């Protein structure tokens, strides 16, 4: 489904990604973790072409994201993305947030879009808030709506860029619950997160990154029970035992 082949990226002289290669199969849930600044957010933003790369190729569902002249808008509409800071449109109501791309990209009618939006709001437990504006909602509620907004496009895969790291602790669970449900329904997911509980529960594989490179890429249980690299051991000891 997602095939990342030997990609590298530079910001000017500074190399942020170094020869990263991995695959995510259909229905697989992959957690990407690592210390901050390790390039994990950059890596998943490359998957839908939000960040250009200078070397290597990325294919999504057979189409090359990194090809010159690739139809990025068509491709992006098929991959959902959830951001650290939610990025709901503040000048639109919740319902309008969910309908915009459905109408403009998928060319659904207003009625069709609203029907789909309401069904998804119900699914993330936000039905009663459809006429509110983002600023009237808590972070956890906003993030659940952001997930619904992505799902409204009927994506073939979902990317999550630290979806819970801007949330107050008591709101993390409500967002993770939605993500766990999504994973259990068979959605293909690539999740950048520090939530190791979530990783253990639903991830098929864990990718550990450090200074722009993929250091470990292994089945979840293997990664947690006997990490190979010193850096991963160090990272896990810091994140798990505090």
């Amino acid at each position: 489904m997602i095939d990342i082949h030997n990609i590298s990226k530079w910001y000017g002289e500074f190399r942020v990604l170094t020869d990263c290669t991995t695959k995510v199969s259909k229905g697989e849930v992959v957690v990407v973790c690592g210390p901050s600044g390790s390039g994990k957010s950059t890596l998943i933003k490359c998957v839908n072409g939000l960040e250009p790369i200078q070397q290597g190729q990325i294919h999504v569902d057979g189409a090359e994201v990194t090809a010159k002249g690739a139809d990025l808008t068509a491709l992006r509409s098929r991959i959902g993305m959830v951001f650290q800071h939610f990025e709901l449109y503040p000048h639109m109501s919740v319902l309008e947030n969910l309908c915009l791309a459905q109408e403009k990209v998928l060319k659904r009618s207003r009625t069709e879009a609203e029907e789909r939006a309401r069904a998804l709001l119900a699914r993330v437990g936000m039905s009663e808030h459809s006429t509110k504006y983002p600023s009237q909602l808590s972070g956890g509620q906003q993030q659940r709506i952001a997930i619904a907004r992505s799902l409204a496009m009927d994506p073939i895969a979902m990317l999550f860029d630290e979806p819970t790291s801007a949330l107050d602790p008591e709101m993390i669970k409500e967002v993770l619950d939605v993500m766990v449900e999504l994973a259990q329904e068979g959605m293909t997911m690539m999740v950048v997160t520090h939530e190791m509980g979530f990783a253990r529960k639903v991830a098929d594989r864990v990718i550990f990154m450090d200074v722009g490179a993929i250091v470990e890429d292994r089945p979840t249980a293997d990664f947690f029970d006997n990490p190979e690299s010193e850096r991963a051991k160090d990272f896990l000891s810091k994140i798990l035992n505090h």
Partner: protein
Amino acid sequence: MADFDFNVVWSSLPFLWEGLQLSLWLTFLSIIGGIVLGTLLALARLSGIAPLALLAATYVNLLRSVPLILVIFWFFFLVPLVIGRPIGSFYSALIAFVMFEAAYYSEIMRAGIQSVRKGQVHAGQSTGLGYWQIQRYIVLPQAFRNMIPILVTQGIILFQDTSLVFVVSLRDFMTASSIVARTEGRLVEMYLFAAVVYFIICFSGSMLVRSLKNRMAT
């Protein structure tokens, strides 16, 4: 003081009202045109397409480096040359104001566009929206809303600047007041009255800006 006669104001009200209508109409159309052209210039400057950005930047810097009165003159003589027939003082003045104000509005809109978080654009892109759709539905509405107080302030300045159109013999409010003042020999009364009218309009505008700012802060 006993010699002052403010009856002249009453008797010439219809004439002054015509002048004021021209001032307000010119202001209104120039604000609309200036914001539209200014927004396009701002988008060009932020487009990341080097020649386009350079062209827009040159335009903005050029227009901001010449006095408005010169631009008004310029278009009065230039436009008929370009299109081959006279278009009248009003339209040449309107074009001059739109072109001139666009340079200022583009700087305001540029700041407004940059005030919208990059993540908003990413969110739009990630759902498959194209560049123009993102600008139209996501970025510009927020940029515009963030900049409303400054846009209105610029509109107040523009209203005051419309008094310059006397140079192409348009009869705006200021010119109308001047004419009455001179023909009736009531200079002090008329200029006092004109000052009061400008003050009321501009001060109301400033109050509007303040209340908009307060409303946005909450």
